[in-house]
């Protein structure tokens, strides 16, 4: 008889400017695989991070094995209670062996000296139990990702974990490896462990899942036995969100062809991507996390190397090997990760805004014309209503929305032909989002081609003229934003090459 081992009720969690979770409930029974489903940003990962003690909850109750947890969970406490999370990005020390990784932080010692033999023996026992064929003394970096993941699972079991959270475990695996993973999951299930399984690959669910919980926009939607729900119902519950925010779409005639991308290939994440952008239109690129959208924009912009592909701007083929080549020709990118790629956080707002425009404000000797610089900065601050104490404050002192405005505004002092926005509204409040939309519309009216990458369906449907949908590094379809539905896009976005073998 299975018992309820995790009971999370009325969980709420807010981050500055966003309500990530609102009154969410989640139940997990022993011997059950529970799929946690939802679009990007639905709050699945946040919920699981609360369960594993990475985040603290603002409200709500958690019971694990019938025992109420009143104080906040810490990662250490969660581990002691038998909760383990297998992250999407594996957290392992590549230079250490399998056994060393399994016992990292809990090394067994004899008289203060590491006892390598004990650890190797114990690791071998755990791996054998799982019928995983890996030598404990192998270096982690010598293992393929799939085996590393199994080591992570073994590590979790070595801490006596009874509740396992797997976040997108199959995204990097081949079909054979997935079969192996599923075998292990079934085995764990048979041992009475509870597994919370987060995945975007809906077609996998049939093979292992017992129940599903669906979330949307930080809210709990439903939980049910998997056999009681159809795939179509799952999809419509994931997206079933009315578009309540106002999207200020503007109409203008489509102009000539500005940008043409032909057969772009860059690594595993960008495969044979071709599309066109015309003057006076906003082209949306939709897709799930890891679909290769960011990689595509970076390859076009010259931030990452590309293997093959042609970039043609206003009829002229461009040779872009570095970002400066793209910038010079008027093709610019406002990158996704503000802190990592967009801002020099320890420089002032002024210096950030003028960084790509120094060629415009410097004389022939390369001396900065402070007057022009001041004008560009105050124009940007006014046009974007950037809220700040003064332009000399460092960029890190701004709120997320205002940081994003700085990242975007620095490109608009230039005469650009095509502007690519990668997730420009992530993590910013509604008012700031609308300002970003208006700005994209303004560019569109000026005859500039806008490429808009977003994971949020309502906004991509509300703002774009055309939407390209990507999945697994390929463009799987194109839809007209005015007539397309969210289900249509999600169907295209989950059109994976079938990796799960028929059983």
């Amino acid at each position, binding site marked *: 008889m299975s018992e309820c081992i995790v009971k999370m009720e009325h969980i709420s969690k807010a981050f500055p400017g966003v309500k990530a979770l609102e009154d969410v409930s989640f139940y997990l029974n022993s011997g059950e695989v529970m799929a946690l489903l939802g679009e990007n940003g639905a709050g699945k990962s946040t919920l699981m991070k609360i369960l594993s003690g990475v985040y603290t909850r603002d409200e709500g109750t958690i019971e694990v094995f019938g025992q109420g947890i009143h104080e906040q969970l810490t990662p250490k406490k969660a581990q002691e209670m038998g909760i383990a999370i297998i992250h999407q990005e594996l957290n392992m020390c590549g230079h250490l062996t399998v056994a060393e990784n399994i016992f990292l932080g809990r090394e067994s010692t004899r008289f203060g000296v590491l006892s390598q033999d004990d650890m190797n023996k114990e690791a071998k026992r755990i791996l054998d139990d799982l019928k995983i064929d890996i030598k404990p003394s192998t270096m982690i970096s010598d293992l393929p990702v799939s085996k590393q993941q199994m080591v992570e699972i073994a590590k979790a079991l070595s801490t006596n974990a009874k509740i396992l959270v797997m976040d997108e475990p199959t995204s990097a695996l081949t079909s054979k490896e997935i079969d192996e993973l599923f075998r292990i999951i079934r085995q764990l299930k048979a041992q009475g462990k509870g597994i919370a399984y987060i995945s975007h690959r809906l077609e996998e669910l049939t093979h292992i899942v017992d129940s599903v919980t669906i979330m949307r926009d930080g809210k709990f939607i439903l939980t049910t036995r998997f056999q009681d729900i159809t795939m179509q119902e799952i999809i419509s519950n994931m997206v079933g969100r009315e578009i309540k925010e106002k999207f200020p779409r503007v109409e203008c005639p489509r102009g000539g062809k500005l940008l043409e991308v032909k057969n772009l290939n860059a690594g595993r994440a960008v495969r044979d991507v071709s599309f066109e952008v015309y003057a006076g239109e906003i082209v949306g690129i939709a897709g799930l996390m890891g679909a290769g959208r960011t990689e595509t924009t970076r390859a076009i912009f010259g931030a990452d190397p590309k293997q093959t592909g042609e970039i043609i701007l206003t009829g002229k083929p461009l040779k872009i090997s570095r970002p400066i080549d793209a910038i010079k020709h008027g093709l610019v990118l406002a990158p996704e990760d503000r802190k990592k790629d967009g801002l020099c956080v320890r420089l002032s707002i002024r210096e950030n805004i003028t960084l790509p425009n120094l060629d415009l404000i410097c004389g022939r000797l390369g001396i900065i014309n402070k007057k022009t610089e001041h004008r560009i900065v105050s124009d940007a601050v006014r046009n974007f209503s950037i809220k700040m104490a003064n332009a000399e*404050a460092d960029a890190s002192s701004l709120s997320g929305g205002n940081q994003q405005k700085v990242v975007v505004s620095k490109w608009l002092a230039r005469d650009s032909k095509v502007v690519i926005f990668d997730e420009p509204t992530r993590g910013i409040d509604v008012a700031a989002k609308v300002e970003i939309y208006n700005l994209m519309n303004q560019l569109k009216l000026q005859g500039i081609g806008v490429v808009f990458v977003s994971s949020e369906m309502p906004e991509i449907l509300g703002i774009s003229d055309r939407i390209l949908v990507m999945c697994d590094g390929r463009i799987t379809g194109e839809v007209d934003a005015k007539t397309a539905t969210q289900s249509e896009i999600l169907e295209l976005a989950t059109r994976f090459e079938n990796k799960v073998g028929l059983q």
Partner: protein
Amino acid sequence: MLKIENHVSLKNVIAVRGMAQVLTVSFGLVALCIIFGVLNPNFFSGENTINLLRQIAPILLIGISQAYVLITGNIDLSIGSVVGMSTMIASTLMSKGGVNPWLSVLITMVACLAVGVANGLLVAKCKLPPFIATLGTMTIARGIAQLANNNYNTDSIGKILGNDAVQGFRDFFYYGSFLNVYNTIWIALVLWFVFNFFISSTRSGRHIYAIGSNVEAARLSGVNVVATTITAYVVSAFCAGVVGFILCAQAGMGAMDAGNTYELYAVAAAVIGGVSTLGGQGLMIGTVIGASIWGVLQNGLQFANVAVAWRNIIIGAIVIVSVLLDVIVRTGAKSKKVIK
């Protein structure tokens, strides 16, 4: 709310620009001067002051060197060896080759700048860790300094040319004065103004800060990271080369170990003056204060007859304390921000 925000931001302005550190250590500098002045009234005598300033000048120059490179987020360990190389090549050219002093200066400078270019290429193009790359060039440059005169210090630079012929060189870099101030001090001042202007008011200068703050964001904004890194290392090698000429002019010969461990004095001068070893921040005015503290300590402790061993211990402690202060101020500012 708005008030708090203003308050925090103002604090940020001070902290980020490195001004807080500059102000703190300026007080420290004044305090040191007062202490030494009380301990020994002669400390403030006209003669000592002018000597003190002349001692500070080379430290300021290598401080500029290291500050430029630290602001890019890298480090230059080859500074001291470039000083030695500069001294040895210039003095060998004059004492052994009888080459005109100014032509010697020119040839030597080309060699020094080559080291700067090599450093920049190794770090930015070949992506070697800057510590390792410049450790290598440091050793190589010292080797070249030793090789210059076959493993000997040189003879007098006037040996072939005659003392009169090299007097102009020696006066220009060390013994001469203008408006009652030694030329060495003028050289340091002029170069300070040039490089302060360069880093604060030109495109390349801005790029130096940008790659130090976030190299990826800078690259995506169209900054040429390789060229910018090379520029910083070349400025560093240039200042080190000039210090080499100063030492050569002072001694009238070349010593193989000239400039030994100067790269570390340079780190101290820059860091005491508020330059972050993490890159992206630091002010040239801070380097003036940092170099001055270094010089005042050396001079004042010597004046007060403090044994060398104790001098080292005191100076080392002051390096740690001054940076620790900065860390405390900055983490203080940060925790406030989180509360907001």
